[in-house]
Every structure is written in structure tokens, then in C-alpha cells.
């Protein structure tokens, strides 16, 4: 294993993952298209993955990377599910606009 990450380098990685997470969150809240919204959630997942890797490197043990692998698998599963759902929705409402789905309220 290479020398563990110095505190300074760790902060850089964490900064990147933080920014990535916030971008994902904002994208999720603002973009109307369902697929884009799903991609934003994927972005948030990856932000967490980067943080995981950074901490793994900082502590010099591989647990972070193990966790990454599982994050990717779950992200893939969710992608499959999301796309299936989006296809079903498109067949029903022939629009991908998130605003059209507001029948249930109160």
C-alpha cells in the first residue's frame, strides 16, 4: 500500500466530494426531468464513494474500497429500477416532467 494520505490531501478530496454532493442535491431539487433527477441521485452516491475512498486511503485500510464496490452495485440496481419505472411512467403520461405527478396531495 502506498504511504497513507496526508491530512492536507484528504481535505482536498473531501472538498471535491462535498461539492459533488451539493451539486447532486441541487440538481435533484431543480431539474424537472425524471431521468436527470435520477442521475443527480447517482451523483450524490458517487460523492459518498469518493469520500469513502479518501478516508480509506487516509487510514491506509481497504475497507473504504470494499464499501465502494457495494455502493456501485446498489447504484446499478437502482439505475435498473429507475429506468424501468421511468419507462412505465412515460407509457402512462407520455411526459417525463416531475411536475405532472402531483395528483395525490393534502
Amino acid at each position, binding site marked *: 500500500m502506498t504511504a497513507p494520505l496526508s491530512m492536507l490531501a484528504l481535505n482536498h478530496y473531501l472538498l471535491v466530494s462535498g461539492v459533488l454532493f451539493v451539486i447532486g*442535491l441541487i440538481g*435533484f*431539487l*431543480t431539474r*424537472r426531468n425524471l431521468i436527470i*433527477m435520477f442521475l443527480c441521485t447517482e451523483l450524490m452516491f458517487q460523492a459518498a464513494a469518493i469520500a469513502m475512498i479518501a478516508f480509506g486511503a487516509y487510514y491506509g485500510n481497504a475497507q473504504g474500497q470494499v464499501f465502494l464496490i457495494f455502493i456501485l452495485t446498489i447504484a446499478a440496481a437502482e439505475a435498473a429500477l429507475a429506468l424501468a419505472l421511468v419507462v412505465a411512467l412515460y407509457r402512462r403520461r407520455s411526459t417525463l416532467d*416531475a*411536475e405532472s*405527478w*402531483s*395528483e*395525490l*396531495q*393534502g
Partner: protein
Amino acid sequence: MMNLLAQFDLNQVLSLASEETATRGIGSWAGWIPLFPLIAAIACGVLAYRPSGAKTKRAGVICIAGLGFAFVVSVILALNIGHGQGHVTLFEWIRTDHLKADFAFFLDPLTSIMLIVVTGIGTLVAVYASEYMWGDRGYARFFAFVSLFIVAMTCLVLADNLILMYLGWEGVGLCSYLLIGFYYEKPAAVAAAKKAFIVNRIGDLGFALGIMLTYLQFGSVEFAVIFKQIEAWQASGTEISIAIQTIPFLLMLGAFGKSAQLPLYVWLPDAMEGPTPVSALIHAATMVTAGVYLIARMLPLFLLSPYALPTVAWVGCITALFSATIGMAQYDIKRIFAYSTVSQLGYMFMGLGVLSSVGGTFHLFTHAFFKAALFLGSGAVMHGFAGQLDLRKLSGLWHVPGWQIVTASMFVACLALAGFPLTAGFFSKDMILAQAFVTPGPGFEWLGWIGLITAGMTAYYTFRVFFRVFMGPVSFKPGDDHHGVHDDHHFHPHAPGPAINFVLIVLGLGAIFAGWLGVGGESHGWFGGMVHASSANYEAAHEAAHETGFFSNPHQWMMLASSIIGIVGIGIAAYLHLLNRPAAERWRQAILPVARLAEHKWCVDEGYDLLIRRPLRAVGHICYSLGDTLIINGLVALAGWIPRLIGAAVRPLQNGRLQGYGLGMAGGAAMLLIIVWWML
């Protein structure tokens, strides 16, 4: 009721061995007196509810038998009691370790006098009513209530402790409510009954608080214990605490409520709505004298505080004067006699107040006879003239055939009431007035002079009624009460029957000869002896009176002065209402404003209504509409609405838009992070 009978545990009553005192076991007979009227009450009650009850006279007979038997026993007791005392305990009533009150009777000469008055007049009224009430739908019900009244009154009089007296006190209040409201279909009667009960209740509150304060100071409510304690204190000369001195004032409140004195007299004139026998029995002779009996019984306690008896005297005097003035201006015969009763009661209280307990009680005794006669006489008039009571519409009854006996007895009773020499009223009133001038007390001379003036007024208004109704040209208009249904134009009065005449004769004789009981011997004859032997006697100031009198002997002087005043009063009445009736109208015009005010009873009723009843009802409305529905329910509804308000605040966020939810979640998460960050 049946249950009550079982409780009486007959053998105990009959057991001749009475507890403490050594009289010839006379106390145990006392138990019988309330028992018989009670049996009569139950029997009449049962009769009242059987449909056939109204047709037969049986109820009247049962009631007369019950009361008569009680009267006989009372007379035997009065003869045997001499100057001793009797005591019998029937059963334990309230027994907590603090408060002990048994259903026990205490008998002494004062009680036996009262018993004679109550049962005697009661029997006579029952005889009168058996004919007077005949034909009325509630015939049996009337006699049930009358006998229940006698039970309550005898319990009151015989009670050996204040709480049992309170039972009798409220019992008579209940019976007067039921009897005043006897014609329950007349709204005026129902209102009068309600008014009587409530005003009495105000007095009873004072009485109840008085009982509690007595218990607090003396540790017991039984007379024997209280009097023994007072004697011990007087012997040792211990200083009397303020609390003890307030007890008489509280008891006085109760007495004035029941005996219709100044502040609480308003219910008595309205009580005339009830049947006349009721007015005669309850509102003239027996119930209204309960207040006098209470003060007479508790006289030693009243003597403890220097200001109690003078207040009693002054209230009595002012009430006498006040109601005499109203009495002069009324036109309804029964109302006039009602105000005269209030006035005479004022005299009795004055008598007690000026330490002439003999005078007070003797006046009570004689008043019972002649006032009952007056009421029953006016009842006969009312019965005969289809409910007509207005003295302007009746005249010259003396000449109408069959009405001579009524007129004669009315004449004798009026003489007694006016205090004509040698009649019963004369002797009793004279004792009171004489004592007023003699006893040293705050302004007692003034009392005497006011008493004399009121005596004059009494004479005037009594004979105003007599001359108007019974003398002068014969002319009458029937009233609207189609008791005996006759058509109007050729109406002929229906003369009173034998029962009514017999009772009027007996009462007339009583009105004359009752006076002699209190004359002779050094202390007012047999009657004086009896009163002095009881707890109500008061010796001290009596002998000292002889030397310093206005003339050589106050009694001779007073006899002279009051007879002059009486005759003058009668003379004026004769002139105005017999010889020159239009002159009466001219005099009335002369003092019109005062006359009209007096007619409206000095607007006391309206005053009470304005000052007390209406504000209370207004407060009631405010409490209900504002207090309950608005404030409390409002607050409760508000408390109920808080969760809904929070809901309303949060609800817009639930608008169903996906990104709206996302925003909500992100915002919430951020807020929580800030809180946690702030906590670090």
C-alpha cells in the same frame, strides 16, 4: 313515611322512665304529640292519591282527630308540667365524633304554651277548613299538608337541640311552600310560594351559620349543655368573647326571616295567595311566631351580648310602625290583616327586646287567638261572596241574614287587636309598652312612644275594616272566584255553615278571656309563672321599676294611656268609615302622594326586585352566555384547535409535488444539522 314510623320504635316512646329530670315521666308523653299528626298526614296523603279521596270528608275527619288528640296531650302536659322540665330521646340522628344531634324532645313551660297554641289553633283551623275547603279537588291533599305542618311545628317547638329545631324550621318552610302554592294553577300563588320559601331560606342560612358558631363555641348544640355552660360562665364571670356575641345576631337573622320582620317581611303579604285557613293557622298564629319562640328559648344566650336585645327591640318597633302605615292604606282585607300580623310580631320582638319576655310571649299567645279569628272571619266573607275581599265593594254585612255571628266575632277580635280595655290584646300590649318605658336601654323611651302611636294606628285600620265591611248600608258585589257557581245578576251571599260559626265563637271567646290568664298575682298570673319557670325568664330589672316610674306605677299609667289611644283610634275610624265616608276620600286626596306610596307598600317589593333579583339574573345570564359559552368553551375550542392550527401551518407543504417534498426534506435536514452543529 312508613319507614319513619318504624323508626319511632314505639316502646321507647311509651317507656315512662324519662332520662334526666324527675318530673312524673311527663317528657315521654311528648313523643306522642308529633306522632299523631304524622299518622294523620300519611293517611290523608294516601287518601289524596286515591281517586275517590276528593269526594269524601274522611280526610278532614282524620286530620281533626290527629290534631285534636295532639291538643289533648299538650293540655295534659301543660297541666302536669308545673314548673319542671321533661326530656326524651327518640333515636340517634347525627353522630359524628364532633357533631352530636339526636331526635330528642325537651319540654318546659314555654314549650307547653307554644304546644297549646299550635295544636289548639291547628285543631280549630282543621274544623273550620273541613267545611271551608269542601268541594275543592285537593281536599285530602290540603289536610295532608296541614297535619305535616303541625308535625314540623311541634318538632320545632319540642326540639332539644338546635339542629332538630332547624329540621322543624325548614319543615314548616316546606309546608308553607306547599300550602301557599296549594292553588298551583294560579301563577301568582306559585310565585308567592317560591318567594316565601326563598326568603325563609335566606333567614335559614343565618340560622344555620348561627348553629355552627354555637357548636364551635359551646362544643354542643343541645340547650341543656348551652344553658349550663352560660350559667358556669356567669358564675365565674369569665369575659364573653366576640364570637359568642355574634351568635345572637346570626340567630336573629333566622328569626326575622321566619317571623317576617323588616328586611325579610316581603313574603308574608304575598302568602295570602294560599287558602284562608292556611293564612290563619300558619301565617298568623303558629309559623310566624317561630322566630319569637327561638329568641325566647335562647334568651340567656341573647343576654350575653349587650347589643343583641336592643337590636331586636328596635327592629321589632320599626317593623311595627312601618307595616302599620302600609296596613292603613290597603284595600284587600287579608292584606291588611297580614300587615297587621307583621306589626304585632314587631310588638312581640319589642317585648322580648325590652326584657319583658312574659309580655312578648303573652302577646304571642293572645295574638294567636284574635288574629286567627280575624282571618277566619274574612275567610268566611270571602267564601260567602265568591272570593270578594275588597272592602270598597262590601258594606253592611251586619244586616245580611246569617252573618250576625261572623260580625260579632269579628267585632270582638277587632276590639282585642285594637287593644280595647279588658280585652286580651289590651293586657298583652300594655305589658310590652310598660316595660319599654321601664327597662334602661338605648332610646327605649322612644320605643314606648312609637309603640303607643302604632297602637293607635292599629286601632284605626282594624276598625276601618270593620266599619267598612260590617256596618253601614247593605251593598255588595261578588268576586270573580266562581267557587259556588251562581250567575251574577241576582247573586245572594251563601252564609257560613255551623262549623265555621262554632270556630269563630270559640276564637271570639278566646280573644276576650285569654287576657285574664296573664293578670293577677305579682308576676302576671298563671302565664307569667309559666314563662318565668322556663328558660325565657328574666327577673332582675322588674322590681326596680316601681319607684322611678313616670307616675306612681307604670302599669296603671300605661293601661290608661293605651286605652285612650285605642278609643281615639276607633273614634277616627268610626267617623271616617261609618258616619262620613266621603270625608275619608277627601282626607285621602289631601295627602294623595303619601297615600298612593303607602298603597304601593312603599315600593319595597319593587326595590328588592330591582336591587337584588334583576342584577342576580343578569349575572346569571352573563355567566352563562359570556362565561360558559364564550370564555370557557372558547378556550377549550382554542385548545382543541391548536393541533389543527399546526396542521394548517404544515399542510401547504404537502402539495403533492415531488420536488416540493425534496425541498422540504433538504430544508428539514439542513435545519437539524444546524441545531446539532450549534449544540457541539
